[in-house]
């Protein structure tokens, strides 16, 4: 499964989100997931081949129409929230 964590610049918030998504996946027992951080400029391309896109409420509309499931995370530092929101999408 491929997950893309998206922020505006690709260095700050998406990196935090990627780290916490990896923690969440470990907690869920998923060991074959690939999590990538991307800025909003490259996110649309990356999202085309991803299963899940994680991002914020503000950026979700900018990602537009992609085949991936777009999940909005409110608190990027909360592994609990990310785990809860990813759970229904784990095969």
């Amino acid at each position, binding site marked *: 499964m491929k997950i893309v964590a998206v922020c505006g610049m690709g260095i700050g918030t998406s990196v935090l989100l990627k780290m916490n998504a990896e923690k969440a996946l470990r907690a869920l027992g998923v060991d074959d997931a690939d999590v990538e951080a991307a800025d909003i400029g490259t996110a649309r391309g990356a999202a085309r081949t991803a299963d899940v896109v994680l991002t*914020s409420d*503000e950026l979700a509309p900018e990602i537009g129409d992609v085949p991936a499931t777009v999940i909005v995370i409110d608190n990027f530092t909360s592994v609990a929230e990310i785990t809860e929101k990813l759970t229904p999408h784990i095969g």
Partner: protein
Amino acid sequence: MDLAEQLPETAIATHVAADDWRAAIRAAGERLVATGVTTDAYTDEMIAAVEEHGPYIVIAPGFALAHSRPSPAVQRTGISWVTLAEPVPFGSKANDPVSLVVGLAATDHDGHLEIMAALAGILADDDAFQALLAADSPTAVRERLAALSPAA
């Protein structure tokens, strides 16, 4: 990674009065400039990022990670730490108002990952976050950060 090592006292300002989100980001930018991490232009770039993409940098309750992309205005990778005298609304639906602004500048996409991991650890701990907000001087912030770092 001990965050206190990344934050000399000049990189920290506590209980800063800021009228709005721009002033709050500007305060974080001033601390980056004061430590030689960035030039003034980077402060404008951090503000422009929010103007362009909205307040997505407010990524946890009360916390904004002000940053822009690697640019000529970034002289080296580093962070700054500004707590606000009064919480300031950034327009974030989920996480307003903001009490802590961390300014982040990076020269590339990888050099700051340890800093981000350390920051993630602290922000995930609500008691630690509250204790850091209450710290009323740069010295107190550094002491609390050092105390929070996991023992080597």
